[in-house]
C-alpha cells in the first residue's frame, strides 16, 4: 500500500462473553473506514471465529491468522478486502485450530507489520483472560472495554481493566452496550453513572439495546451502515470520538449521548 503509516492498535475486550465485543469491533472498524481511514480488523478468537460472519465475509476466507504466523502465506494474502469499503480489511481467525497456535511475541510482530500499512488495527479479543486474551492485548496500544449494565459484566470488566493496567496498556475507554433506558428509568437496570463510578475510566459511548443489531448481524452488515438504527448512530458517535483528539470533545459527545438517551426514552417510554 502507499506510504508507510504509523497505525494505532486498539484491542476490544471485556472479560465476559456475549457482551458485544465482536459487534463493537465490526462497527468501529467499519465506522472508521467510512470516514476514510485504512483499517484492518483482526479476529483473535481462534477456534471460535465470528467476525467474518458478522462482516459477511465468511465465504472469502482462504488463509487465516495462523497461516500468517506460521508463514504458510504472506500477510497480504490473508487480508480480506471488505465488499463495501476499499480501505477496510479483515484478518480472519483460524477455525480448525485453538488458542495455543499463537504466542504473544508473534502477535506483536504481526501488529507491527500491520501498523506500517494501516491507520487503525482493531483487535477483536476472545472472552476470558487466558492465552487468547494475553496474545490479543500483547500488541495493543489502546484498549476499549465493552460491558453491559449487568453486575457480572461490570465485575469482569473491572478485572480486565486491572490486568490491562498491570500489562501497561494505559487509559482504557469504556463502551456500555445494550442499555435499555426504560429499565434504567424504572430502576431495574444499572445506570451509566453507576457503572462509570465503579470502573472509573473514561466513557467512550453508550449503545442502546436495539433489534437492528440482531438483524444486521444475521445479514452480515454492520449496524453502523444503517442510518435509521439508534445503535448505528451510537457507533457512529463512538467512531468520531476515537478519531477526535481532544478530551473536551469526548466529554461533549458524552453529553450528546445524554440527549440521545432522552430521544430513546421518548420512543421507548410510551
Amino acid at each position: 500500500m502507499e506510504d508507510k503509516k504509523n497505525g494505532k492498535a486498539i484491542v476490544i475486550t471485556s472479560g465476559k462473553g456475549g457482551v458485544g465485543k465482536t459487534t463493537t469491533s465490526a462497527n468501529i472498524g467499519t465506522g472508521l473506514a467510512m470516514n476514510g481511514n485504512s483499517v484492518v480488523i483482526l479476529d483473535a478468537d481462534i477456534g471460535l471465529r465470528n467476525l467474518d460472519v458478522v462482516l459477511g465475509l465468511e465465504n472469502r476466507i482462504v488463509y487465516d491468522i495462523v497461516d500468517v504466523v506460521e508463514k504458510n502465506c504472506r500477510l497480504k494474502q490473508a487480508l480480506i478486502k471488505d465488499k463495501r469499503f476499499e480501505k477496510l480489511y479483515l484478518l480472519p481467525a483460524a477455525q480448525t485450530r485453538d488458542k495455543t497456535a499463537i504466542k504473544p511475541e508473534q502477535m506483536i510482530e504481526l501488529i507491527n507489520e500491520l501498523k506500517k500499512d494501516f491507520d487503525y488495527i482493531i483487535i477483536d479479543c476472545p472472552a476470558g483472560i487466558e492465552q487468547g486474551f494475553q496474545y490479543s492485548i500483547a500488541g495493543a496500544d489502546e484498549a476499549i472495554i465493552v460491558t453491559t449494565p449487568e453486575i457480572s459484566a461490570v465485575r469482569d470488566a473491572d478485572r480486565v481493566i486491572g490486568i490491562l493496567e498491570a500489562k501497561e496498556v494505559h487509559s482504557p475507554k469504556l463502551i456500555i452496550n445494550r442499555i435499555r433506558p426504560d429499565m434504567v428509568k424504572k430502576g431495574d437496570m444499572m445506570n451509566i453513572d453507576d457503572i462509570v463510578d465503579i470502573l472509573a475510566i473514561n466513557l467512550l459511548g453508550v449503545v442502546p439495546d436495539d433489534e437492528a443489531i440482531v438483524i444486521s448481524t444475521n445479514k452480515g452488515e454492520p449496524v453502523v451502515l444503517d442510518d435509521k438504527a439508534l445503535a448505528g448512530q451510537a457507533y457512529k458517535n463512538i467512531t468520531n470520538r476515537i478519531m477526535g483528539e481532544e478530551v473536551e470533545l469526548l466529554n461533549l459527545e458524552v453529553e450528546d449521548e445524554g440527549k440521545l438517551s432522552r430521544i430513546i426514552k421518548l420512543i421507548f417510554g410510551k
Partner: protein
Amino acid sequence: MKRDLVTFKGVSEGVYLDVVGNDLEAIKDELNTKFNNASSFFKGAKFLGVRSDELSDDQIMEIKLTLKYKYEMNISNEGIPEYIEEYYTENVNENENENDTKTKPFDGIQEGVTKFIHGTLRSGQEVDYNGNIVIIGDVNPGAFIKAKGNIIVLGSLRGVAHAGIGGNYDSIVAAYNLLPMQLRIGDIIARSPDDEIEYKSPEIARIIEGEVFIEPYLPNK
C-alpha cells in the same frame, strides 16, 4: 547416524550380507572390524551371498572369497533366496510411489480409495484424505473437507469443500444440498454468492473450462 556399509542379516536359510555403496576398501575395513568384534559369532553359519545394488559381480566375488578364506565362512551355493531380492525391489518401488502421490494428481476418482464418515462434521472439524471422501451426514459452516479425489455429501454441505487437491481437475463435489461456503477443485476457488439462493435439488459441482459449474444431477427432480 552413519549407516553401516555392511550388515549381516539372518533368515531361516542362513545369513547374507547387505552392502551399501561400492567403496571396496571401506567395505573390507568394516568387515574386518565386525569379525574382530565377533569372530566366533559367524562360526558354522551358512552364508548365502552378498546383496548389493551398486557392487559389480567381480567385487561381489572378491568379498565372497575374502569371507571364505580370510574369515573361514561356510559359503553355500544356494545364493540369496528370491523373496529377499523381491523385498528389496518392492521397497524401492514403494518409495517411488510415495513421491508420486505427493507430486502427481490422485487418479482414483473413477475407482479408488475412499473414506466414509458417519455423522455430522461441525464447525472447526477437518477431514483430510488422500482419496475420495463420502460424508453420511451434514457438513456445517466452519467445517473443512480436503480430498485428493471426489467429495460426496449425503446431506447438506454448508462448510468448505476442497476436492482434487494435488491437481485432479476432474474431481467433483456433490451433495443433497449443495450450499458450500467455499468450493475448491484443484486450485480453483469459487465462493457462495453474497445474496442467499437456496436450491432444494441435489447438485454436483465440477470444473468446466477452468470454472466451477454447479448443476442438478437429477434433472427431473
